[in-house]
């Protein structure tokens, strides 16, 4: 591959044009199918990840519209209960496991290496594997739904409804195994992000110079590592109960049904923050850039993110206030659930102060931040209300809660995410999205969202429970439901317009240049879209806002090899360079490992022996993956 260059050629030996050319050759992804499945470029993988996640968002949105169609009037018979139960389960599972978590991690897979100034993510092959596994999990779930085998037990799959006695067929198993797929993918990315952030930062990027989005993703990655094992234990034991007759959740044989809820929510509540914390980082980033000044209270924002991540593990029981747990335990979880409002408050005040002290420019990403403020704070307020045990017993499992968590998840995460897409789109594609269309998108999404979800608070308070496929006409919920259903169309139009804008701008948007917003962080120091090697020279950082501190140039370090993929490993706190490290080449083995793993996971729904026999092809694929290849990258 590197025949043109002698071994151990350094970047200092080449003029800039030649250097770019050689780096592009060493880091390139070859065209064609093998190149496509073998690439380990974090940007290409993130591309796919993001695109796939948005496809799942659209699919989940279609399901939401189907539900709104059915609920538009009382006693409608458009969708029967069996299909409806599959639909709302699919909606929740798709949005949580196939959209929200993956899209946030995918944004990080794209941005974190650029923001910390390195050339690829840590463990790039694991990254490739992660995407294929995620894709396989998504296909499994949706293929099952297409043949009427979609899970129908809710995204939370409470036992005994999902257990061997009541969950008929293989529907609950599909749910449980989809969990395994997506969690495997999410855990892999979490490990990559943790190691990239801790060990691959540009020289000089000490802990207090890490961009806030990167901090958020670091906390998120740790939350993933802490939370996801719980759902793995839960889904595995559920499959065992269903497949080989264990009794984890069978009360007549010493099992316990509430054990499931503890495990599920020990994962499920941090999950909310796994979705929300990246959005916090996006908001901080967008506000800083458009307020045209350093963020107010950097340290406070970092500490809030960390304490949110920690507190997130002490709240799970507030999903179980209606199960009749002992009073003392409930009181503790009320206090902890209330307490998490404090770090969130700190963040909001810091952002407001940043805006007040700066000169805010209202470009489209900022509009989404404003929409975020308006809606997320309402969600936070209703969050305080459901944290109160007595109040929760009234609104729990009603449309009030549906309204609450959509305010938190859409207002708190999806609005910042769409803002972030407008913000980073020029970096990712090299082209701007439309400012004009963007304003319409923001307006439609904001109006559509609030008109759709605000009335649900009232519906819940006047008694409408969640997860019902219909309701009697006599309860006078019909009017509000019809209103909600019509508003949902506005919301859907907003998303449609967003997709149209994104697809059109990809080809026809105005050319962006490397830094169209005048932003301060490292990803804007490289061309848009970034070359395969990200940076021709590894940047050196001596402040939180390297591009504002230095308006014309960028400090860099030299001395890296050009004849192989090489990057810098630096120390955890100071980011002192410790070693030059090679970064793995493209490989098709992660793809084969993912295929082998998928076959085993699906097979294991039907037979426990799959795990035994299936470990053989997985083992072979893994040996292929890790066996030394005598490339320059392998030698040290």
């Amino acid at each position: 591959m590197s025949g043109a260059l002698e071994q151990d050629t350094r970047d200092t030996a080449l003029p800039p044009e030649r250097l770019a050319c050689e780096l592009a050759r060493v880091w390139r992804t070859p065209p064609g199918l093998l190149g496509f499945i073998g690439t380990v470029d974090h940007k290409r993988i993130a591309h796919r990840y993001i695109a796939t996640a948005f496809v799942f968002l659209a699919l989940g949105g279609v399901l939401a519209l189907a539900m709104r169609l059915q609920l538009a009037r009382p006693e409608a018979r458009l969708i029967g209960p069996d299909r409806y139960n599959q639909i709302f389960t699919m909606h929740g599972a798709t949005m949580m496991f196939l959209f929200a978590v993956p899209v946030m991690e995918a944004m990080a897979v794209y941005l974190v290496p650029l923001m910390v100034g390195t050339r690829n993510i840590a463990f790039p092959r694991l990254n490739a594997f992660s995407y294929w596994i995620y894709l396989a999990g998504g296909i499994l779930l949706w293929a099952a739904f297409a043949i009427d085998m979609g899970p129908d037990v809710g995204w939370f799959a409470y036992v005994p409804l999902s257990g061997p006695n009541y969950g008929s067929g293989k529907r609950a198993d599909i749910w449980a195994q989809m969990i395994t797929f997506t969690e495997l993918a999410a855990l892999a990315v979490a490990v990559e992000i943790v190691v990239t952030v801790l060990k691959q930062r540009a020289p000089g990027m000490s802990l207090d110079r890490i961009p806030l989005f990167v901090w958020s993703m670091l906390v998120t990655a740790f939350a993933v590592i802490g939370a996801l094992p719980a759902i793995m234990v839960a889904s595995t034991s559920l499959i065992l109960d269903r497949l080989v007759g264990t009794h984890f959740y069978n009360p007549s044989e010493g099992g316990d049904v509430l054990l499931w809820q503890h495990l599920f929510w020990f994962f499920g509540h941090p999950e909310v923050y796994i979705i929300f914390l990246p959005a916090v980082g996006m908001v901080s980033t967008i506000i800083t850039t458009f307020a045209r000044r350093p963020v107010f209270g950097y340290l406070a924002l970092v500490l809030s993110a960390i304490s949110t991540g920690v507190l997130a593990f002490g709240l799970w029981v507030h999903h179980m206030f209606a199960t009749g747990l002992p009073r003392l335990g409930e009181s503790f979880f009320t206090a902890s659930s209330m307490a998490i409002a404090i770090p969130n408050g700190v963040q909001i005040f810091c952002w407001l102060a940043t805006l007040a002290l700066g000169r805010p420019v209202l470009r489209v990403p900022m509009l989404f931040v404003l929409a975020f403020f308006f809606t997320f704070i309402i969600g936070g307020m209703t969050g305080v209300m459901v944290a109160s045990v007595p109040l929760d017993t009234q609104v729990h499992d009603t449309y009030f809660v549906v309204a609450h968590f959509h305010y938190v998840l859409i207002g708190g995460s999806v609005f910042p995410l769409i803002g972030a897409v407008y913000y980073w789109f020029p970096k990712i594609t090299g082209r701007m999205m439309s400012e004009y269309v963007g304003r319409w998108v923001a307006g439609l999404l904001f109006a559509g969202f609030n008109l759709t979800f605000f009335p649900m608070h009232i519906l819940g308070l006047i008694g409408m429970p969640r997860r019902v496929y219909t309701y009697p006409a006599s309860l006078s919920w019909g009017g509000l439901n019809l209103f909600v259903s019509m508003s949902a169309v506005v919301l859907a139009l907003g998303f449609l317009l967003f997709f149209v804008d994104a697809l059109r701008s990809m080809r026809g948007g105005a050319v962006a240049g490397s830094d169209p917003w005048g932003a301060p962080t490292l990803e804007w120091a490289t061309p848009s879209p970034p070359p395969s090697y990200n940076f021709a020279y590894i940047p050196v950082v001596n402040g939180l806002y390297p591009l504002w501190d230095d308006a014309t140039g960028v400090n860099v370090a030299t001395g890296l090899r050009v004849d192989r993929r090489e990057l810098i490993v630096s120390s955890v706190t100071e980011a002192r360079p410790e070693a030059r490290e090679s970064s793995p080449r493209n490989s098709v083995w992660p793809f084969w490992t993912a295929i082998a793993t998928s076959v085993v996971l699906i097979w294991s729904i039907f037979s426990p022996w799959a795990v035994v026999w299936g470990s053989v092809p997985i083992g072979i694929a893994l040996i292929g993956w890790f066996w030394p290849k005598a490339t320059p990258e392998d030698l040290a």
Partner: protein
Amino acid sequence: MRQPRVVADLSKLPLHGFETASLTWWGTLAFMLIEGTGFLLTIAVYLYLVAVAPRWPIGAPPPDWRAGTATTLVLLLSLVPNVMIARAAERQDIRRVRVLLIVMAAFGTAPIPLRVLEFRSLNVLWDSNAYGSVTWFLLGLHSTHFVTDLAETFVLVAVMFTRHGENRRRFGDVQDNALYWNFVVFTWLPIYAVLYGVPRLT
């Protein structure tokens, strides 16, 4: 485009650092964190079921402790060559590493028949009741990790005897494998205490 201004020269940095300067070392650590959380949660499940049950163990005598204790002893003993191999890898002493890898492979294989014996001396089946389920699950979970690391050790034996062996990166792999083996041994101790101790306490 911004003009690059060279402020540092990294050409003298070592290629591939060891331990905290190695990415794979941190990766191994992260996976240990994930799996450690998994073990911790499974132990929590075990104790939760103990708390719910009126009597523990349910419908079975406590497991026979002999096979489990033998496993524990072998695993503890294996720490000695494991520490030695980590040191040899640090010194990049290929001959010692090769010999010790074979020793480690033997130490990894020895507990397998013991583990089979352990399953047989649990006195309960996974489908008898929740006690049986969680006992088998916990023991099975640990066995999976232990077998996985053993497989990795065998692959390393093969690699180190090829021309790829004498390489800083491979020595790093040996170190990471030793680190993971420590994890397998140390996570076993609380599991051993729970599996064999708790049924005797209550």
